[in-house]
């Protein structure tokens, strides 16, 4: 457990992945970086590669086209990796649950390949920025 504590003690780098989201959550993630909320003061930073990321921020109900891509990105992250299921769609596939192209929700897809995946749920359509910050902090506390 010591390694876990050490690896999540400093800045959390986040890779943002959109799996068939409607873009609303993606825009709200950008809100976190604006001066009002400015998550970079906590060291939370968006990075361009999953290989650099401590946490994976996944928006959107997972559809069949995105599923192999999501799993590939998850495979490339260094473990342990915190996964954040973002918004109503990320938590439960939302209103798209019974659509023909949806194979999600996210936790079902991830638990198939990695039963020990650490997933934090942030509901909301889209979630408020305060909720996002709290969700990530809670996730770190759980680890």
């Amino acid at each position, binding site marked *: 457990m010591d390694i876990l504590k050490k690896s999540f003690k400093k800045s959390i780098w986040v890779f943002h992945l959109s799996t068939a989201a409607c873009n609303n959550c993606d825009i709200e993630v950008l809100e976190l970086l604006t001066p009002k909320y400015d998550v970079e003061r906590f060291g939370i930073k968006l990075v361009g590669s999953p290989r650099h990321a401590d946490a994976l921020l996944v928006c959107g109900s997972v*559809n*069949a*086209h995105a*599923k*192999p*891509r999501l799993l*590939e990105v998850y495979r490339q992250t260094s473990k342990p990796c915190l996964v954040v299921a973002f918004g109503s769609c990320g938590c439960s596939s939302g209103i798209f649950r*019974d*659509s*023909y*192209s949806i*194979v999600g929700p996210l936790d079902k897809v991830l638990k198939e390949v990695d039963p020990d995946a650490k997933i934090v749920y942030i509901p909301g359509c889209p979630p408020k920025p305060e909720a996002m910050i709290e969700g990530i902090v809670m996730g770190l506390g759980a680890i």
Partner: protein
Amino acid sequence: MSKEVMKDLKKKLGKKIIDMVQPRSNRIYIRVEPEKAPGVVEYLFSKYKCKLCTATGIDMREGIEMIYHLAREDKNILINVKTLIPYSKLEMDSIGKKIPAFRWIEREINEMLGVEFKGHPDMRRLLLADSFPKGKYPLRKDFKHSDVTDEDYDYERSGI
């Protein structure tokens, strides 16, 4: 204005169509057989200077009804060419073969409703995932969400 158009079209297309009605002053419905539909639409598009708004397909239980929505802007009139393709023979000649504007909408109707367009130059998937099972058509009335589960997908074809 639309009466002129009706008269004109009746003269030109008289033998090819089943009937022609005018529900409103700026609207004309033309019903044709599936074999005649490409000819009628091509005539309206190329010779009669109509523009393609879109084409739609509806599952009418006894078959798929294709509607081509064409607009003649200078006469302010919308012409809908309707044709019912029976389930026993779900195919018609492709209009996209000659007119490129029809190609994408025919690809979409092919994957969503299963109408085969003969002679279409590029019949790849447009909206559905490449891994979606073949022979399932999500916009048909008898399609249920449970018809396609995660096991039916062929993820080998998804390009990862």
